[in-house]
């Protein structure tokens, strides 16, 4: 498989710090770096810190695994809607498959995403986990 290292580095800061793109004209935010707003076409985009909490918008438990996840699953994938309305795709961790629900509050968890090969570089990024009420 092709080494992913250069691609990983291009997006590392975004993924490590959960930065997003915000259009200063129409207010649309999105997770990927963009130079043009996908909604209004404006080029006035600023990099913003996205909120680290949100809710599960939709979820699935992945049983048929892609080659990169061989031996890892089943695992939960979700679209998470952050507090400011930005949506992103992430794995839900620290949660049993039968416990995940639409609307479940979740928070950012910085985790290992994958490894290029047995001795290759390890890459990290965001996952989300249930917010446990600490009373």
């Amino acid at each position, binding site marked *: 498989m092709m080494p992913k290292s250069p*691609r990983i580095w291009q*997006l590392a800061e975004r993924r490590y710090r959960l930065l997003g793109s915000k259009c200063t004209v129409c207010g649309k935010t*999105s*997770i*990927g770096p963009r130079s043009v707003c*996908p909604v209004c076409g404006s080029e006035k985009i600023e990099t913003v810190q996205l909120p680290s909490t949100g809710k599960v*918008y*939709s*979820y*699935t*438990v*992945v*049983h*048929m*695994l*892609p*080659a*990169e*996840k*061989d031996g890892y699953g089943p*695992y939960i*994938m*979700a*679209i998470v809607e952050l507090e400011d309305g930005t*949506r*992103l*795709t*992430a*794995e839900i961790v620290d949660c049993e*498959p039968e416990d995940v629900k*639409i609307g479940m509050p979740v928070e950012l968890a910085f985790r290992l*995403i994958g490894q290029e090969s047995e001795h290759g570089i390890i890459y990290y*990024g*965001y*996952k989300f986990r249930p917010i446990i009420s600490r009373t």
Partner: protein
Amino acid sequence: MRDVAVVGIGMTKFGERWDKQLRDLFVEAANEALKDASMGKDEVQALFVGNFSAGSFVGQEHVAPLLADYLSLKSKPAFRIENACASSGMAFNLACMAIASGIYDIVMVGGVEKMTDISVSEATSVYAKAMDAEWESFFGLTLPAAFALIARRHMVQYGTKPEQLAMVSVKNHRNATKNPLAQFQFEITVERVLTSPIVSDPLHVLDCSPITDGAAAIVLCSAELAKKYTDTPIYVLGFGAASDSIALHDRPDITTFSATVKASRQAYKMAGIEPKNINVAELHDSFTIAEIISYEDLGFCEKGKGGLMIEEGETEIGGRIPVNPSGGLKARGNPIGATGAAQIVEIVQQLRGEAGKRQVSDAEIGMTQNIGGSGSTCVVHIFGRQRR
């Protein structure tokens, strides 16, 4: 703008074709289409071929001139179009425009994919390249998982049931038993779907289209020339194509494919018809939920009533709008790059009255709808026995 007609069609048997290479499959379908049109290769002026990922599946890129070479199209221009599962639907759309514009009089559209040379987990990774590699598949999303996210929301928002999803698969398997070229020629039951292994919940393996080898080809020409080649030309009455965000999470509502809504409205307008005028349709059932949502997006039923539409049998052969008489992607098979062309082959057979045991009676107007990725591309064509 000139009218366009289909004068020749060809398709290989779909399935696990371990005996054949990518190029062999294409040449088989292409030769059949030329024979069907009683046409020599030298009359074809250009080739538009849909292929998703020969590079990943068989290590070959630059497939358009390769296929032209092996068909002996000599120096004719050959274009490869890649829009994931919508590759050959988009190739057909471009070919229509090439003829309508007057640039070419006769062109061939092909679609081909050879998928079974790699393992299922590797193929799952290749499918995932049809989504956003950096912001979806990097984090572990697979294509079935994306449709599972869609299905879950549709169930929550509209009360769609797993049994209704299963009914799509049951219908399409039943239809495929009447299609000698289909990959799966056996019937299944709702119970069998719901007890089959889970791919990505709520989708079971029998909710998902299979990994398939196959090719399909179509010869089309200007309407003026059509009668020279066949007594039963099938005319292109309308078409439309549209895009949506590459990532599912960037769409305001994931229970609708807005590209399907936009593409179909263009096609209806060009053809001067309404959804109720469609007699037969080949829709994109890559996953059972996709067929249900497509009923809604195409205006066959109200938003949210797609589950009811399958449950009431309205899309069976003999129903109000028969959908996927070929068996669809689910049971005819889904060789990604060939799927759009295979849909068109079926509709042409239906309108010619040559669909055998799966013939929809008195079919005058037919539709194909071909989706790429998680709905990022959609292309719709409307065909008729009579010219506009």
